[in-house]
């Protein structure tokens, strides 16, 4: 296995060469090495390990994937190229939790209750506010009325930023002054939305690092206050993860889930070179589906997550 065999090898390439090396297709190499054999070459598994780890999949999950492939190959013997591709994809796919039908990610689908309240959470700078702008645009486009709540009352000009998105998309933004109680903003937003029979409410919250216990408790408070207006709120807690974040995303998912019962994930900034592989382990461990991915800063740069597409981009 890769990590084990690594120490026997003395080949040391310079970092630059290593980084510049064009990515060969994992499948191609994997296939060549196993066709007609019942055991996969260490070399090949090393390569797979490298691809997965440099995509931020993480050591634990990577080792698990490799182990499963070894087992499959040993059991099924003499797998062909096509089968092998299938095996690898299947193994990776099985890690990604499927979206549940109750909370559809399709914007035009009928929502289970009204107003349908989405609370957006995450660490600093991941793209919460931008994702809210894009979501509001999509919901509005599919004929739904949307209210936004500017419950980030902490960061400089966070309110103005959400207001700017509200204007861009053409949806109302409920706000108070900087420094106001975020729970009170959420309360106001839900009250207005309910009075005006809005279909969707999206609450923006301040970025917070998951190790700050008080700030995490604040989220619980916001949730509780919202229930006073809409008993089922929040119908969705969307945790936004930055696609370029490494293994720390795991801890983020853990702590935010603990504080707020995260029900869906959005992975942003996947228009860059980062792969967001850490989400495999997260989705698997916490059984939370990825619903959306962010692919840019524009209003249309949001896509409903497609598991197969994601895996293709991860492995090709």
């Amino acid at each position, binding site marked *: 296995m890769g990590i084990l065999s690594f120490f026997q090898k003395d080949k040391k390439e310079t970092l630059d060469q290593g980084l510049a090396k064009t990515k060969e297709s994992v499948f191609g190499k994997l296939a060549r090495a196993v066709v007609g054999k019942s055991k996969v070459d260490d070399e090949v598994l090393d390569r797979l390990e490298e691809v997965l780890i*440099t995509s931020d999949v993480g050591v634990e999950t990577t080792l698990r994937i490799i182990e499963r492939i070894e087992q499959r190959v040993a059991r099924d013997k003499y797998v062909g190229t096509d089968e092998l591709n299938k095996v690898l994809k299947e193994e990776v796919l099985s890690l990604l939790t499927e979206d549940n039908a109750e909370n559809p990610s399709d914007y035009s689908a009928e929502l289970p209750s009204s107003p349908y309240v989405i609370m957006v959470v995450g660490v600093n700078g991941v*793209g919460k506010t931008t994702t809210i702008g894009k979501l509001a645009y999509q919901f509005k486009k599919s004929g739904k009325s949307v209210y936004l709540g500017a419950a980030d009352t902490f960061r*400089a000009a966070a309110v103005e930023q959400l207001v700017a998105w509200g204007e861009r998309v053409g949806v109302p933004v409920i706000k108070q002054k900087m420094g106001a109680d975020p729970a009170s903003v959420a309360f106001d937003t839900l009250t207005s939305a309910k009075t005006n029979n809005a279909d969707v409410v999206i609450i923006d919250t301040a970025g917070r690092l*998951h190790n700050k216990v008080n700030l995490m408790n604040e989220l619980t408070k916001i949730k509780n206050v919202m229930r006073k207006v809409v008993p089922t709120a929040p119908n969705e807690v969307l945790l936004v993860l*930055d696609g*370029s*974040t490494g*293994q720390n995303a795991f801890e983020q998912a853990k702590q935010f889930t603990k504080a707020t019962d995260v029900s869906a994930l959005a992975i942003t900034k996947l228009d860059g070179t980062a792969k967001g592989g850490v989400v495999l382990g997260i989705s698997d461990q916490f059984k939370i589906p990825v619903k959306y991915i962010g692919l840019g800063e524009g209003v249309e740069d949001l896509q409903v997550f497609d598991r197969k597409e994601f895996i293709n981009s991860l492995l090709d």
Partner: protein
Amino acid sequence: MFENLSERLERSFKILKGQGTITEINVAETLKDVRKALLDADVNYKVAKTFTDDVKAKALGMNVLNAIKPNELMVKIVHDELARLMGGTHEDINLKGSPAVILMSGLQGSGKTTFSGKLANMLKHKRGKNPLLVACDVYRPAAIDQLKVVGEQINVPVYSEPDSKNPIKIAENAIKQAKRNGHDLVIIDTAGRLAIDEQMMAEIAAIKDAVKPQEILFVVDAMTGQDAVNTAKEFNERLNFDGVVLTKLDGDTRGGAALSIRTVVDKPIKFIGTGEKMEAIDLFHPERMADRILGMGDIVSLVERAQEQYDEEEARKISKKIAKNQFDFNDFMSQIQQIKKMGNIKDLASMIPGVGKMMKNVDLDDNSFVGVESIIQSMTPAERANPQLINGSRKNRIAKGCGRSVPEINRLLKQFSDMQKMMRAMQNQSNPLRMMRKKQSRR
């Protein structure tokens, strides 16, 4: 899987404990764990490989010569190698030029705008500079407003052209304005951009050509994963930046990106960001960072920062009062104010060796004092000076005054009396910080 790197290494060194020499076999076992730890810490795959190769070579070369325990030797080797990777000694920021121009660069959301404010604030107070902040992000909604709010917070003017969509012109005009108004420092905040966004990369290169900055800083989120190397490399090729800023280190990320970036671009990490507030900025010291990664505590930083912010006179007074058992709620309140000035206390505390681990799950956010302060404020002066006065009916009155419950008041009183006891006990010991410093210099 998600214990931190220092815990991880600590454990892997235990395997070596009790074994007399470093052999090919036991070093391989340990290094396997080290490598895994580095990857868990988001050190780039290749960098981690190179690192463990180097450490292995060094460890094997040393085994016969030394009589110290293998695990101690390995700690030293890994520590030295980490420090070496993160690069030599501290490198200062270049402020020559009139005005000196600093250009920020980096990915979206990495912390450029916040850091621009922090840096302006720091250079204003520590170097007596007269900075001008420049809003060159013409894309992100309310980006200009954000910088303006930051500027107000630290009392530094912001140059902006709300109607312009040309950051190059804005930057040029800002320099002219700085010269006119006698600013000796210009800090240019730019929009976040992806390294593969050709148009945006050309734009920032053009800003560089137009204003010829003394210092270009690449701002990167400490939580960044494997991609840190690619991004740093691209930005460096385009801008040949002078230094790196590592933000959001107040989180619990292990910050392997620091190692990776330093290795691939060979540029110093000059500053770190440790919070959202304007004071949450620190110099980067590779030696100390290596210590910190290995759980040895970042003593020197802590002492320096504490000294700077802490009113010595006040501290001496309090210390005397503790000795005489006269520490009261007034002193407690003034300590809270001191700690608040110093920035994130959890972060401060985590720099004390041994405390880091203890504090991991302790709730010590900046807001943790809010309740305490309001309770103390509801006490009468007599109660503050003589906490033992506070009986049942006084508790009820205080509770009403601050909107807290009586059990909460009781908890505070209990904590306070525990604290008094602990403080006296601590005064009787020798200074733990000093002890730690000695330990470090012995290495």
